[in-house]
């Protein structure tokens, strides 16, 4: 067609000629057979197209430029099936008939024919390059990583001597000297040939090559055995760990019960054996067991953790009997845990009876003494009973110092007056608690309203505090604390009164109201307890298991006293918990100590033997000592002189600080390590020659005028050999 195109363009059709356009123009002078054939086909195509257009919209066919060679055969003959794809079957078709082909290959060909999978197209150049690069890099980095051990070793080495592979100076072993020597005379040559033929050692007369080989082989075997052992051990360990983990995760109670039983059985067996073997040890073991059992029993008893207790606790809501039982149980628990307290209580009661006329003794005495225990700020914080007590306690905290004993006596009277006042108030409040609305009315006549009272208390407290502590600056903070506490207390009180009212209502149903204990006795009990408890065993600490806290509605108790006792117990608990720490006095003591340490001491400059006889057992005369005793000038007043709650250390001196390290330097992890490095002296004044040499060894040693070559692969090999032989390779580097 291309020829035709060119022809037609010659005739004056400049545009590109397409097949389908040219049907009419085909009536040219030189119509060949090929053209006629083409004509027929074109006709057919047109027909097909026409049929196609009948069905619907006419699809616009794109002009297509065809390649001439496809349509034209070399021999101007149209090729049959030109548009078809060549199939594999077309190629293999002839194979079937070929007789010489084996069955196997035929089969394979058949399989190939059947498989319809297409081969994936090859990756783009960029991607394949990238993959190749990546692989190469991985290979290289792996290779390079072999140096890791060498590098690390060199980093850790105490001393590196460069150049690395230096010839050892000094006398060489004979073998190495002999190495260069060559057999020259025929006899020598003969001898050496014999030796070499029998593989006898020439230079290193220790092992023949075969021997060495055998040694090496053995070492390999050993290594293998060792490795196997290690593997086994590791596997066993991992199994064991997995098992333990599994067992620990099992939640089944029954399983654990069985396990425990098995364990105990095992133990029993062992014990039986021990009885036969070593009766003394068995006895000891028995004792231990007994002790453990006792402890267990003691700790478990009345701890409200038993099944019974729990069930009762549930029932207590509905059943009165159960409630009572639980109450009793709690009671017992309390008794048990505070055994000593109860016994002391009895004593106290006895003493009270002896005294008989408790009214004569003013209540505040007890209060004040009780305050001694409240020197503990924990206590003051927790106390929600009455604020007045707290105030006194705070006041006495400062008084607790032994150092201000003299002033204390002076102030005693003033204190008494105040304390009495406080006590009055406290009593009033207790009465308030008992029957709030009625009593309040009565009290109001005597006193101002509550807020006024509080303010008054506050001011009084502060004044008292200041008076006592003479400039202990804690007054302000304490006052603030007090204020807060007071607010809290009032809330608490309200709650309490409400609760009490409810209780009392109940109580009136049940029976007659037992009159309240006088506060004095109560206080006495408290003080007694607190005094003695310090000496007693603290059962809470002994018990292995803490008491279960049961939330049980109160049994309809009749006595208020019991109730107060309970409160008391709570306080007792707190007291016990923080019995040890008396922070404020500790702090004050410490401050005093620091002040004393800061005071300059007198210096004795007496020189014995000057102007009089000297010698052992002789003291310089008194006069002389007095003469040469230099009193130092009093120091400048301390900065924290007027700040009782603060200790300002005056040890820091600016002149020394310039030379001191103020932050822990980098490689050190703790100050102690750093201090140790500083503390150890290096010089020959303190160390022997050898130590000094060892300690002051420089990290890098180079030889004068020697070229230091870069590290070579031999180092790596050496390192590997060294590692396999179990010796350090850096022997050479650390002479």
């Amino acid at each position, binding site marked *: 067609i291309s020829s035709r195109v060119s022809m037609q363009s010659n005739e004056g059709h400049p545009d590109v000629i397409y097949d389908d356009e040219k049907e009419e123009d085909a009536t040219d002078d030189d119509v060949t057979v090929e053209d006629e054939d083409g004509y027929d086909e074109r006709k057919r195509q047109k027909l097909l197209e026409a049929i196609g257009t009948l069905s619907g919209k006419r699809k616009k066919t794109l002009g297509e430029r065809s390649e001439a060679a496809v349509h034209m055969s070399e021999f101007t003959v149209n090729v049959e099936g030109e548009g078809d794809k060549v199939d594999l079957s077309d190629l293999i078709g002839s194979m079937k008939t070929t007789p010489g082909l084996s069955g196997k290959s035929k089969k394979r060909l058949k399989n190939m024919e059947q498989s319809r999978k297409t081969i994936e197209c090859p990756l783009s150049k960029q991607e394949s390059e990238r993959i190749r690069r990546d692989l190469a890099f991985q290979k290289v980095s792996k290779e390079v990583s072999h*140096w890791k051990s060498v590098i690390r070793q060199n980093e850790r080495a105490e001393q590196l001597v460069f150049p690395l592979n230096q010839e050892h100076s000094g006398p060489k072993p004979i073998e190495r000297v002999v190495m260069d020597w060559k057999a020259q005379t025929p006899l020598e040559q003969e001898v050496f040939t014999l030796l070499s033929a029998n593989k006898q050692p020439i230079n290193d007369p220790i092992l023949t090559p075969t021997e060495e080989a055998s040694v090496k082989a053995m070492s390999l075997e050993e290594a293998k055995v060792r490795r196997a052992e290690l593997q086994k051990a590791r596997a066993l360990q991992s199994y064991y760990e997995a098992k333990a983990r599994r067992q620990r995760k099992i939640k089944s109670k029954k399983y654990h019960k069985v396990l425990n039983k098995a364990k105990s059985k095992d133990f029993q067996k062992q014990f039986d054996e021990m009885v036969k073997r070593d009766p003394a040890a068995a006895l000891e073991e028995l004792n231990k067991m007994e002790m453990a059992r006792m402890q267990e029993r003691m700790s478990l008893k009345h701890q409200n953790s038993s099944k019974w207790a729990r069930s009762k606790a549930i029932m207590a809501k509905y059943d009165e009997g159960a409630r009572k039982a639980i109450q009793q149980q709690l009671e017992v628990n309390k008794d048990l845990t505070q055994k000593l307290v109860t016994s002391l209580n009895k004593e106290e009661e006895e003493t009270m009876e002896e005294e008989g006329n408790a009214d004569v003794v003013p209540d505040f005495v007890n209060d004040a003494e009780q305050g001694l225990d409240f020197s503990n700020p924990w206590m003051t914080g927790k106390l929600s009973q009455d604020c007045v007590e707290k105030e006194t306690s705070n006041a006495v905290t400062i008084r607790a110092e032994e150092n201000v004993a003299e002033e204390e006596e002076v102030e005693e009277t003033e204190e008494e007056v105040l304390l009495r006042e406080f006590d009055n108030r406290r009593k009033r409040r207790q009465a308030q608690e008992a029957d709030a609305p009625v009593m309040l009315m009565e009290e109001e006549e005597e006193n101002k309203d509550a807020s006024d009272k509080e303010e008054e208390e506050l001011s009084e407290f502060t004044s008292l505090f200041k008076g006592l502590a003479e400039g202990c600056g804690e007054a302000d903070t304490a006052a603030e604390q007090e204020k807060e506490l007071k607010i809290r207390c009032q809330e608490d009180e309200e709650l309490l009164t409400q609760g009490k009212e409810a209780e009392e209502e109940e109580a009136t149903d049940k029976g007659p109201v037992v009159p309240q204990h006088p506060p004095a006795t109560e206080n006495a009990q408290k003080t007694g307890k607190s005094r003695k408890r310090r000496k007693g065993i603290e059962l809470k600490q002994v018990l292995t298991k803490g008491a279960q806290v049961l939330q049980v509605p109160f049994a309809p108790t009749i006595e208020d006293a019991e109730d107060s006792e309970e409160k008391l117990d709570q306080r007792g608990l707190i007291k016990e918990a923080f019995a040890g720490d008396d922070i404020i006095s500790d702090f004050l003591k410490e401050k005093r100590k620091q002040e004393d340490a800061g005071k300059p001491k007198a210096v004795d400059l007496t020189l014995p033997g000057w102007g009089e006889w000297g010698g052992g057992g002789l003291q310089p005369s008194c006069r002389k000592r007095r003469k040469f005793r230099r009193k130092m000038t009093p120091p400048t007043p301390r900065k924290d002189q007027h700040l009782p709650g603060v200790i300002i250390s005056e040890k820091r001196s600016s002149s020394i600080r310039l030379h001191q390290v103020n932050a822990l330097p980098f490689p050190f992890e703790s100050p102690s390590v750093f201090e140790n490095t500083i503390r150890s002296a290096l010089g020959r004044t303190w160390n022997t020659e050898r130590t000094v040499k060892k300690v002051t060894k420089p990290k890098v040693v180079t030889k004068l005028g020697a070229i230091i070559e870069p590290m070579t692969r031999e180092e790596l090999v050496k390192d590997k050999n060294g590692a396999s032989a179990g010796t350090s390779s850096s022997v050479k580097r650390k002479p």
Partner: protein
Amino acid sequence: MQPGGPGIPQCNARSPSLFTINTWLVCSLLANIFVAIIFPFCKRVPLRYQMKVKVIARNPDDYVRETKLDIQRVPRNYDPSLHPFEVSREYTRALNATKLERVFAKPFVASLDGHRDGVNCMAKHAKSLSTLLSGSCDGELKVWNLSKHECVRTLQAHEGFVRGMVVRYCGTSFFTVGDDKTIKQWKMESPGYGEEEEPINTILGKTVYTGLDHHQNDPVFATCGQQVDIWDEQRSSPIRSFTWGVDSFSSVHFNPVETELLASCASDRSIVLYDMRESTPLKKVIMTMRSNTLSWNPMEAYYFTCANEDYNLYTYDMRYLAKPIMVHMDHVSAVLDVDYAPTGKEFVSASFDKTIRIFAKDGGHSREVYHTKRMQHVICIKWSADNKYILSGSDEMNIRLWKANAAEKLGVLAPREREAANYSQKLKEKFQHHPQIRRIARHRHLPKTIYHQTKELRVMKEARRRKEKNVRKHSKPGSVPVVSEKEKHVVTVVK
């Protein structure tokens, strides 16, 4: 002073000193008499009559020196109570040692002048410590004798710059590349009388070569220009060429330990790693600014340090290129060259800011800075193969020889001298964290421009840091991540 020594009985307390002297006299006399007179007879006395007498005995070996050249033997009592205040005394010694170090810190040894243009490249001789080769910007090449401080040979190697130079591992010949697109191989020894100065070999290339390095122990060398080529010495065409995108490379360096590896710095701000045995490059890391050159650690196979245009040097582990293991800061202008000490513990860098700095391989800041008034932009730097000297070639046509340790005494040290130096070195190390000592040890005098520029840079950095902090503070938590200094300078790693 306690009257009377320990162990001497005191009968008369009133005159103890007199008594003491008498006792000593009597004792020594008695001993002498015993040794001289009685002892010979003692042998004949039967054993049961022998009396045990305690005598002060001294072995002359303990106190007599062998030759008169030996120092006097001083018996010492190491009882710590006799030598109190050890820490304070050593502190004083350390302080003095530090001060003396600063007093004796005179690093400049010599200046070699003779070039008629800026020194562009230098090469160490592989086998001789005292030989140095240098090529200048006018194509002239000079061979120097360092011990005599003189030029032994001059030749016009190229037209235009001598771009690179390397001595063959055997030290018998060296290669140069220049702006005239040629690679030339020259004999190390100067031509005999009447012979012409001619290269052994000349290879004409198609493009300009900018760098050159020789394999550690094979007759193979590498050049870089538009691509990195590996050449066999016997052939006139490269045996392998590496390209990765179109870029020009500024330097190429063989790894001295893993000798088949190479690294090159390209102008697209990247550092590319190669393996000579592979047909493709291995990896490349692109940084925020261009690296001028790099140097492999001669003792640690996978570490190399590159000198960057952003005033910093970066030490990389070639296996993990995503983040340099250390950023070395202190220069105030582009770093032009870097070379490792042969011990692999330190390296030296040359900068456009007219200074040379010495860094510990794992130190973020330099331990030393060298500069002189006349030294201009330092273009090339070398650390001598015996770890003692540093050689710098600079713009103003001079090559300078420096000591690697500024305060070190040159030459052979007497044993006592060496011990004293070791001791004071250890003392300095021990007390290096004490502020006074640190202050003195760190103090360096800097040219005014550099001093102010350092300050300025510090201010800029602080401002940037503050700004970033503020941005972080006022944006959603986690939206502005904290990027460490090490990560900041790496753009990406290309596989």
